[in-house]
């Protein structure tokens, strides 16, 4: 993938597994957002393939790609809620557009999704009237309303306090497991990496620098990974303590 003559991503080969939370991590400018946009078809790769359950989606027509997107849900960094619609109308929008359900069926599904993200009684509020964390949860509810097979999340924790971030992570992780969907999260939140990272790809300058799971992070000898994950002295001390404990336990 390149913008003009500048290559952004090179030689990326990865498999995102069903029923798992797959993480794309890396520094700002590493190519995370570009990779996510390629995966959802908002950008087209110069070469290579993107397979959804074996179907190559890279050279589909606009009409064909829209059919594939019916199976995709996405949570945007800024939630991307339509500010001229209420919370309920936002979540109901995909149902209004693509289903012939009755109004009651739609409202029931909206209420179920709101309950699922632990939000009730906000149906008639506008996005500007709810907090950032609530907006993210409404975004998740909208992303799952059509029961997608693939869920993509772009920086779901950006701008949120640590407690709300954990709540959002847990929510995405449990929804992934419950519905057995393929979830891909683009993040640089270290808590997310360690808590819900079942399949992690670390990008550096548009290339895969490391690949593994949260369990492999501590024991990995990859310098770039260690430099990235344990960038702060506080985390370095924590890591050292964890490694010391591990060696003590082994003895």
């Amino acid at each position: 993938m390149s913008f003009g003559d500048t290559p952004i991503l090179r030689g990326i080969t990865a498999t995102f597994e069903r029923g798992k939370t797959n993480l794309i991590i890396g520094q700002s400018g590493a190519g995370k957002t570009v990779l996510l946009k390629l995966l959802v078809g908002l950008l087209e790769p110069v070469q290579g393939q993107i397979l959804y359950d074996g179907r190559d989606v890279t050279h589909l027509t606009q009409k064909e790609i829209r059919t594939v997107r019916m199976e995709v849900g996405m949570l945007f960094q800024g939630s991307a809620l339509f500010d001229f619609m209420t919370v309920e109308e936002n979540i109901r929008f995909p149902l209004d557009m693509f289903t012939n359900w009755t109004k009651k069926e739609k409202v029931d599904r909206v209420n179920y999704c709101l309950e699922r993200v632990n939000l009730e009684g906000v149906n008639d509020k506008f996005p500007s009237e709810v907090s950032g964390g609530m907006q993210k949860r409404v975004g998740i509810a909208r992303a799952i309303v059509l029961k997608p097979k693939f869920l993509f999340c772009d920086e779901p924790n950006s701008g949120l306090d640590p407690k709300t971030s954990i709540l959002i992570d847990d929510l995405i992780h449990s929804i992934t497991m419950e519905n057995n969907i393929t979830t891909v999260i683009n993040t640089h939140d270290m808590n997310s990496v360690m808590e819900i990272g079942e399949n992690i790809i670390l990008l550096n300058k548009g290339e895969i620098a490391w690949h593994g799971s949260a369990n492999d992070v501590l024991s990995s000898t990859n310098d770039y990974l260690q430099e990235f994950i344990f960038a702060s002295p506080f985390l370095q001390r924590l890591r050292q303590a964890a490694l010391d404990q591990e060696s003590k336990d082994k003895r």
Partner: protein
Amino acid sequence: MVTGVLQIFTDLGRWILLMRQALQRPEKWSMYWKETVRQMYDIGIGSLIIVALISIFMGAVAAIQFAYQLSGQLIPIWYIGYIVRDLAILESAPTITCLVLAGKVGSNMAAELGGMRQKEHIDAMEIMGVNTASYLIMPKLIAAVVVIPLLVYVSAFVAMIGGFLASVPTGVMTAPEYTRGLLAFYEPYNVFIMTVKSVVFAFILTAVSTYQGYFVKIGSIELGKASTQAVVASNILILLADYIIALLLTA
């Protein structure tokens, strides 16, 4: 110079592709109809006061200035009614109203779509599988070509009232004289010309403004630029179309 010409052709090509995409079959007619009605209300009711205000002064100023120009000449005073009527129908109502609407409605459309692009609303709809060009542009086009001609009729009518208010109560002429002028040499074909102009101008201001908004780049400066370009380009194209229509329909 060469870059400028290339840019014009690039914009033209992108505009044609966008319009082709915008005029595709809707995913769901009811959703498009709902959006069209919302746009009709915004354009029609939202612009009624400004159109009426401008028109009443256009008619009033035309009446007073022609009274000044005709004073001391052999042309009968009731001609003022005739001049105000044909001036309103042939030029001021369609052209001035649409130039004003390009500033009000056009810049609003560019800013609305540009804001949606920048806040990832358009990407969010694309991910859901919505043909955003069609859903966001087609209702605006339909609403504009239906409602703006109605606003132009209102403008022409109010301009004639403006002429009456400026000339009769001030003693320039009597009410029967003004009415006689309004009814003299009436040519229904002129109303046809007004209708053609208003439909063409409505299409121009909507198509240009939505194009500018839909492809806006990131940043508030870009949003302002797109809004300004929408108005400037619409105004130039409206004046050009005005000349061509006048040439074709009155030659």
